[in-house]
């Protein structure tokens, strides 16, 4: 057996794993019968179908030939980590993490942090430019979201404004 499409092989396996897990989760709820569908009935069908189709995709990747083996290629760790990291940091700074005692720092601090961390994801990084961008975005989001659209945000750190 030879894998002809790395992408399909992997996605099929992932789909199958997800389907099995989903179907298994469904059996922990009351499945019921067709006439009286329990909360687990429809999820069970969906999970089994996903697992089955996933297996088909995997099987197909070992039978149908492709030109280049459809490799997945390398993973872009740098953008992945910095973009997702910037997003998480934004959440922590904006709302705080009460469970570990981090107070909310508010929108302005969070915007600066997000812009700087996200900018690290690109291949060029200049402090001055990023600071200008962060300032523009901070002022812009304050005007657009807080003033104009009246959305509710903690704007400043809670230990300053109380």
């Amino acid at each position, binding site marked *: 057996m030879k894998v002809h499409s790395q992408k*399909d092989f*992997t*996605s099929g396996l*992932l*789909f199958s794993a*997800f389907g099995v897990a*989903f179907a298994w*989760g469904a059996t922990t*709820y*009351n499945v019921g*019968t*067709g*006439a*009286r*569908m*329990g*909360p687990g*009935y*429809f*999820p069970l069908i*969906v*999970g089994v179908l*996903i697992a089955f*189709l996933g297996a088909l*995709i995997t099987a*197909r990747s070992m039978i149908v030939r492709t030109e280049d083996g*459809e490799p*997945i*290629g390398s*993973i*872009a760790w740098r*953008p*992945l980590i910095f*973009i*997702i990291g*910037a*997003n*998480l940091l*934004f*959440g*922590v700074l*904006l*709302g705080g993490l009460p469970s570990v005692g981090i107070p909310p720092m508010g929108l302005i601090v969070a*915007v600066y942090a*997000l812009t700087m961390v*996200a*900018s690290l994801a*690109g291949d*060029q990084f200049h402090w001055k*430019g990023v600071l200008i*961008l*962060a300032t523009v*975005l901070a002022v812009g*989001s304050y005007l657009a*979201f807080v003033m104009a*659209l*009246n*959305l*509710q*945000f903690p704007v400043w750190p809670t230990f300053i404004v109380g």
Partner: protein
Amino acid sequence: MDLIANLSLGFEVAFTAQNLIYAFMGCLLGTLIGVLPGLGPVATIAMLLPTTYALPPTAALIMLAGIYYGAQYGGSTTAILVNLPGESSSVVTVIDGYQMARKGRAGPALAAAGLGSFFAGCVGTLIIAAFAPPLTELAFKFGPAEYFSLMVLGLIGAVVMASGSLLKAITMILVGLALGLVGTDVNSGVARYSFDIPELTDGISFVAIAMGVFGYGEIIANLSIPSEKREVFTDKVTGLMPTKEDFKRMLPAVLRGTALGSALGILPGGGALLSSFASYTLEKKSKLKPGEVPFGQGNIRGVAGPESANNAGAQTSFIPLLTLGIPPNAVMALMVGAMTIHNIQPGPQVMTSNPELFWGLIASMWIGNLMLIILNLPMIGLWIKLLSIPYKWLFPAIVLFCAIGVYSENNNTFEIWMVAVFGVVGYVFHKLGCEPAPLLLGLILGPMMEENLRRALLLSRGEWSVLVTRPLSATLLAVSVVLMVIVLLPSVSKKREEAFVED
């Protein structure tokens, strides 16, 4: 005349100063974000959704429709000037549009796209107004079995007309269905797959999924490609107006494109993508007049036809959404989500219970199209300036808007964690070559399908055969099967692959 009475009610609603301003704001914001390279209409609407939270429902929907048209228009601008299709439906515009731009005829190309879209939009609006009421009548005859089968047809239709592997697309729909089932089961009150997290009992926010998969996933994928120099024709846009000769060639292409788009848009799953491909193929098949530029080298018909078709298709794809409550594509799935946020359950009852909203929305579609013409064509210079903003300034801003957007949905940081999770998931999909659009459809339709299946089986005492013994339901399922068979036929599947690779 009902049609005229209905439309005049609609225009009364839409022509208030307040709603006109929202339509204008929508078009403006939609174009502003949509013109940015690498952001399609789905990502644009998901990003701008929060700007409508604070508005009354009618105004919010009018603004969203404006955003949608703006995003589509912005997408064509990017396609023509940068050779970068922002969405799959402008893939064919790129072929001749970019060549026109290279020859210094970017102005006429943009005008052809704009005028063609406007004409198609007018026709599309009339078709919606004429066909929505009778279709709504039909929708009231639908029982749960019919609804279930219709959704199956809609989902199958959406994948057979999409590009890429059919098997993977169907699996993606099912994954979407599965994600849509997370949360409290309406019937039993059981919190499914919530892992004891209180926020998950309300289900996974579709905004978080859309932004994560379409916003973050795309950004990460874009950044992984080393930044290359792109040729942008910023200073070459002179003389917007097409020549008399151009007009003569454009007109039949626009008419054909509009007819094709209006017809295909109504089909479940059809919409903009299929329409533009079909129109381009049709134009290419027709004979070249003497002295005309061949296709692929900057023929104006290759821009005008597909652009009209895709706008007409985009317009008429509102019909299944407004009359049946079933979104035919990912953009409409977002519209359903937006309606639910404003406590409107899309479906046949909207027209009778909320006529102002229904007809106001239809009238504002036309107004939105008009605004694109009178505001955006003259402002083209400004949009072109936006194109020259380097990506390194853009993507932090996009990340920020996504983060702020999901947070403001519930004022809860939990949504920010979810968007991070789905950003990673989106990147994995990208790496594995899985198209994410079907997932969004499944996500919206999941709970509806379960509910209708439950009702159908309850009425039939557990007999699955009810889906094939009721004639209407059987027909719908038969059509889905036929569609699948046609696509899987060796000769068709080969053609299909060619059609989507051709560029």
